[in-house]
């Protein structure tokens, strides 16, 4: 385990500003503001080659470089963490909010931004309070407001609470929501870097991405780039959940394998059961099976294996899991969270969910499986009907954002891996798995934090 962002997480009360400072906090801020120009800070971030930790893995330094010379411009931190299986940002915020605040201030300085918002999931009541308090304390300490640390630099940070909508994690939906609108994704182009919040240039970055910035400034971009693999630099927090013995957040150098993550950190599949499948990068990713576990945790390697690293949510399912039920649950989620703008997503997700539920409840028809794939192809026309699914099949898609295509993946990946199980379900008119899941009656080992 190589801990960079999580170093303070087990320190008691690291969320308090005095504790944070004792542990070396706000030194990077002083360094950046007093001895570096904004351009130099941006350059360090570029050198680090860090790729966005929010899901798409786009190189942060490159994205920052897209900002046209237009002011005001904005920095918005995406703390809407809602991708099923992902819980890293919440812990980063609850246990080390100042790390994020410091990163935000430094990034804003580098981007010549004077107003920034942290859009946090409304459900994260405790995290939001800790973050709000951290921001207040940072004002009190002169890290925010006018003339920060005696320099010319001014910055305000507003902690903005969402209100229950997964789609607001999608950056343009997030901006709509932050403008007081329904959280509907916008058409791209224009991209936020050109026309974002209030139609002004805006950078949207994930909590984890920005939390890394103080470390990059402290130790240098080159140091950060020395970690990880050639195309996937640095460390990344993986949220391990599901049927493992020790779920939790683990920060590892990129390049570690899935097997190592599950066995070394997660202490293996629960009860010595056999592995059925792994959702490797959040609910929107194509499922992996046993034979894929030696794939390194690296953006490109996972893509080459047909899936994606995504948000770093690794969900493990053992042999007792019913694939139909899991697929139905995921598609239900996407249908519930569809914003509803695009016909194919709005109608297609709901239809797929209805069919899956029917199958799960024992009223499936033999033609339903082809129908499912056909409905899915209304969203992703290149969807194939046979063989293992690959992420590349979701291109092109007929929707504005990739929520719709994600639902197709969540349906088609398990269907195509476990088609016989679906068919058996239909034939039996019931679930072939005796005990799908089962709640434990004793306390399991709590996850970290």
């Amino acid at each position, binding site marked *: 385990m190589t801990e960079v962002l999580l170093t303070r997480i087990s320190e008691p009360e690291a969320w308090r500003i005095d504790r944070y400072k004792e542990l070396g906090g706000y030194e990077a801020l002083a360094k950046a503001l007093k001895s570096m120009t904004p351009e130099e800070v941006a350059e360090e971030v570029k050198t680090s080659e860090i790729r966005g930790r929010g899901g798409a893995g786009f190189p942060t330094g490159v994205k920052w470089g897209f900002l046209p010379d237009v002011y005001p411009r904005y920095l918005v931190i995406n703390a809407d963490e809602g991708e099923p299986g992902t819980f890293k940002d919440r812990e980063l915020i609850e246990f080390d909010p100042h790390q994020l605040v410091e990163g935000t201030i430094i990034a804003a300085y580098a981007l010549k931004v004077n107003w920034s918002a942290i859009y946090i999931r409304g459900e994260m009541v405790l995290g939001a309070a800790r973050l709000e308090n951290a921001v207040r304390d940072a004002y009190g300490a002169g890290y925010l407001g006018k003339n920060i640390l005696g320099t010319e630099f001014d910055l305000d940070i507003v902690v*903005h609470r969402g209100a229950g909508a997964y789609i607001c994690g999608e950056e343009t939906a997030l901006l709509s929501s932050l403008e007081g609108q329904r959280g509907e994704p916008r058409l791209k182009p224009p991209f936020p870097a050109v026309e974002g919040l209030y139609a002004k240039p805006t950078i949207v970055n994930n909590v984890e991405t920005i939390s890394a910035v103080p470390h990059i400034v402290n130790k240098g971009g080159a140091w950060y780039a020395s970690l990880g693999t050639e195309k996937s630099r640095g460390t990344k927090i993986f949220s391990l959940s*599901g049927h493992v013995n020790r779920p939790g957040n683990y920060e590892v150098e990129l390049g570690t394998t899935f097997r190592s993550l599950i066995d070394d950190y997660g202490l293996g599949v629960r009860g010595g059961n056999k592995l059925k499948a792994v959702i490797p990068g959040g609910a929107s990713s194509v499922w992996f099976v046993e034979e894929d576990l030696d794939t390194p945790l690296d953006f490109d390697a996972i893509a080459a294996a047909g899936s994606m690293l995504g948000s770093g949510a690794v969900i493990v399912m053992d042999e007792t899991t019913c694939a139909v039920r899991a697929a139905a649950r995921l598609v239900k989620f996407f249908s519930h969270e569809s*914003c509803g703008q695009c016909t194919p997503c709005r109608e297609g997700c709901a239809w797929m969910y209805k069919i899956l539920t029917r199958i799960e409840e024992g009223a499936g028809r033999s033609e339903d499986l082809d129908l499912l794939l056909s409905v899915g192809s209304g969203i992703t026309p290149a969807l194939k009907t046979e063989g293992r699914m690959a992420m590349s099949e979701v291109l092109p898609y007929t929707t504005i954002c990739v929520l719709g295509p994600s639902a197709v993946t969540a349906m088609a990946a398990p269907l195509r891996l476990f088609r016989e199980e679906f068919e058996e379900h239909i034939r039996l008119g019931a679930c072939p798995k005796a005990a799908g899941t089962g709640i434990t009656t004793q306390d399991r080992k709590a996850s970290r934090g």
Partner: protein
Amino acid sequence: MSFSAENRRIADRIVAQYPQSESAVLPLLHLAQSQDGWLSPDGMREVAEILGLEPAQVFSVASFYTMYLREPAGKKIISVCNNISCMLQGSDELLERIEHRLGSKCGHSTSGGEVYLEEVECLAACGGAPCLQVDGEYFENVTIEAADSIVDSAMRGERPEGGKGLPSDFYSEPLGAPSIPEGLGANEGEGS
């Protein structure tokens, strides 16, 4: 409803935090809900008035988000995660158990108005699945026994034991108060 004088002051500070006032829709709706326990039409109307919007516009926004309760709910709110990681750890059985013990179904309040039970999407606590929230406080690795005791406390109007903490354990600022301290915000905006 109508904002209390104190909340009205908070509302004005919230609006002033943003370069454009419309951005305050969500936080003001949270404030209205925290005052009344639910988001009434009057609450939406007042938010619209403060921001110079039509009530229909505010309604349109509010109804997009699941956290706004558009009907009066029970005094305590139990939110059970039903998403994949929790499902894998038995959240369906957990939910059933809670329904049974409450004697009321998901999406409803108990007949005495003590508890409102809802299903929610992933709460970003999958490492502690199955998980739930009571009035926003996280409870993780919830066993059947733990669920029973959570329900019993909630029915008595008490805060259940074993949660992971609430803001009120640490801070005095009211929920929804702006993060920029009074008088310190620069309100950098379009025009400046």
